[in-house]
């Protein structure tokens, strides 16, 4: 292949699209307007077993498709216009990640309410509650939120919960763009990769939580490192030694002393800028170490990946990040591991069991729930397949992306993370998997590493080649985006809550006195946000493996003073646990027969009180 061919930009070869100057932006604005009309007319109470998608009308999907078309039109223009692409990406983020916040009356996901409860405790007492919950052993994120709550003059974090997913996803955009710009893919593949990231991130880890904040830390660290350091240019020996011999030599160099000492990466930044980046990254690593159990180790692995692929010039950073994470585990989180160290190290090396608990245990429930779960698996598999094609097709100077995609899998070797380890692995690799998937369509044309499959020369069929490329881009982006809308909100029939359910919990909290428990059947309620020490929540059937009689018996054994039954729990029972339609009424009748009385009722929730005890 001649040098001329290598130097050409594959999209420029095709002759770029020439729509009117503002068509992309206009499509974005129209799409956003349709989204607003759509969410305004959506009725939360019409939600079916399929979740959020069941309350969306045609305007929503028309808006989403128009934004995707606008993005592809902008992507195929020359020159690229970053401001317009950023605007269209922001609109895409709003449409995919802002919908639940706009339609659902209160914040979903019980954990976000529990986190609000932790924060309220810190606001009230000025310190975390040791020994109460494992998450309190990594209190950095909660403490930060408590400071913010006090700073804005509130007494709790409830007002942060509802729109948090959209805000945090929008904040990911800046580091994602920096990563895409510096990851060694073509510029167009970079923009497409960011779009694919947002179009495929169905993993709902952006609710109000420390992990969502820590994911931002993770992205910022990688973005800073990739922006600061470049691979040292080297005189290729391929003409002399042969291409494959050169590749073998470069692969062996991964563990050379020069590579591990960071000599294969250089920076054009000034000394003060570089020191500033190092200090900032160390500070972020410390913040992450005290805020989350898993992310610090993902950062260490990603930094190590950058080091061995010539994108990090200071190996000290990897070690500092590692000892900060382990140091906090040893010192700050001792409340968590003292007495049950096996929860940390018990699953080391048990890959089969980890994968089993991460995948197969989730594939249960009703037909609609199974459809959503299987679509999630299919989507992830499709993205990895595309990334595999990207690996074969792309030109590059280093295998940075491949190593960054693979590195998080080492986390699964060490921890199953409560059955969610594999999800986190996919999440931590997603920015890089998306860029590789984008390279499957736009493989670039520069780099010392050649594609492993023959390059398709689109210049041979200029007009049809351009149309095919635009079509492939559109179909891919739209298909992933729609699938993500379906599966991301797929649990919302039981993980999204109504105002009535929140009022029911607030009623129970306001009437419960110290020592009285609030009983729920399963943790699908806005619960845990108040009185975390004095009024415990008792969940009768967290795993969903009890019979209805056993649930009643469980309640009678523990005798919580208050019991809250709700629409979300009923939906969970029908969709996930396999209980018959109307099962909650059976439980309610059973409780009433055993001395409970209904004290307050809403359209979607009922509060019962035990009259047999004082």
């Amino acid at each position, binding site marked *: 292949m001649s040098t001329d061919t290598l130097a050409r930009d594959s999209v420029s070869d095709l002759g770029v699209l020439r729509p009117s100057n503002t068509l992309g932006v206009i499509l974005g604005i129209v799409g956003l307007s349709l989204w607003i009309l759509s969410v305004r007319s959506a009725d939360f109470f019409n939600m079916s077993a399929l979740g959020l998608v069941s309350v969306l009308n045609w305007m929503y999907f028309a808006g989403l498709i128009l934004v995707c078309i606008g993005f592809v039109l902008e992507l195929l223009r020359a020159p690229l216009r970053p401001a317009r692409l950023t605007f269209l990406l922001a609109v895409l983020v709003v449409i995919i990640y802002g919908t639940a916040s706009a339609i659902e009356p209160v914040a979903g996901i019980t954990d976000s309410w529990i986190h609000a409860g932790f924060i309220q405790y810190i606001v009230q007492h000025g310190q975390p509650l040791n020994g109460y919950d494992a998450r309190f052993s990594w209190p950095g994120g909660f403490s930060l939120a408590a400071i913010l709550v006090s700073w804005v003059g509130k007494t709790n974090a409830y007002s942060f919960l509802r729109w948090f997913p959209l805000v945090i996803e929008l904040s990911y955009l800046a580091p994602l763009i920096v990563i895409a710009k510096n990851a060694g893919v073509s510029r167009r593949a970079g923009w497409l990769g960011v779009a694919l990231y947002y179009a495929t991130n169905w993993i709902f880890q952006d609710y109000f939580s420390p992990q969502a904040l820590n994911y931002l830390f993770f992205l910022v660290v990688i973005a800073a490192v990739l922006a600061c350091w470049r691979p040292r240019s080297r005189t290729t020996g391929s003409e002399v030694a042969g291409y494959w011999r050169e590749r073998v030599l470069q692969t062996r160099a991964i563990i050379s002393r020069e590579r591990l000492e960071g000599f294969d990466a250089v920076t054009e930044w000034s*000394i003060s800028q570089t*020191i500033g980046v190092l200090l900032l990254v160390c500070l972020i690593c410390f913040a992450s170490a005290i805020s989350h159990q898993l992310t610090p180790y993902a950062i260490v692995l990603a930094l190590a990946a950058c080091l061995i692929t010539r994108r990090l010039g200071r190996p000290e950073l990897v*070690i500092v990040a590692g000892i900060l994470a382990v*140091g906090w585990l040893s*010192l700050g989180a001792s409340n968590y591991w003292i007495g049950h160290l096996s929860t940390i190290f018990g699953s080391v090396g048990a890959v089969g069991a980890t994968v089993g608990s991460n995948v197969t245990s989730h594939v249960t429930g009703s037909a609609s729930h199974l459809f959503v779960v299987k679509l999630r698996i299919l989507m992830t598999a499709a993205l990895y397949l595309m990334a595999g094609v990207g690996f074969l097709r792309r030109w590059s100077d280093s295998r940075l992306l491949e190593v960054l995609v693979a590195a998080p899998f080492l986390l699964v070797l060490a921890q199953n993370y409560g059955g969610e380890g594999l999800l986190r692995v996919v999440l931590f690799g997603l920015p890089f998997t998306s860029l590789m998937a984008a390279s499957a369509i736009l493989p670039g044309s520069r780099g010392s590493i050649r594609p492993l499959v023959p390059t398709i020369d689109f210049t041979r069929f200029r007009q049809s080649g351009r149309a095919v490329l635009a079509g492939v881009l559109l179909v891919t982006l739209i298909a992933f985006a729609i699938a993500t809308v379906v599966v991301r909100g797929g649990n919302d029939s039981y993980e999204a809550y109504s105002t009535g359910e929140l009022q029911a919990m607030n009623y129970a909290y306001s009437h419960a006195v110290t020592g009285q428990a609030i009983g729920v059947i399963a943790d699908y309620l806005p619960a845990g946000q108040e009185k975390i020490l004095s009024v415990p929540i008792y969940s009768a059937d967290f795993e969903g493996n009890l019979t209805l009689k056993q649930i009643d018996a469980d309640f009678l054994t523990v005798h919580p003073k208050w019991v809250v039954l709700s629409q979300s729990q009923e939906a969970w029972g029908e969709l996930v646990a396999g209980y018959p339609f109307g099962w909650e009424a059976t439980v309610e009748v059973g409780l009433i027969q055993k001395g409970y009385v209904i004290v307050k009722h809403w359209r979607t929730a009922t509060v019962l009180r035990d009259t047999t005890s004082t």
Partner: protein
Amino acid sequence: MFIATPSALGAPAVVLVTLIACIVLLGVRAWAGVVGVALTRRVMALVNASIVVLLVVLAVVIVIRFKTYA
């Protein structure tokens, strides 16, 4: 000896001091590398050896801490 007891070696202060010592040495090494301070091979070898020793000590005291208090 007092220092030889596992609970003493796994005490928070031992872990913390070793950890801080590691970070300081790593910081010095990184600063020298970025600023371009010309360290002789002997000094560099000394710094590297100290870091490795401290990392090993840190690993040992953390393992002892886990085993003692778990």
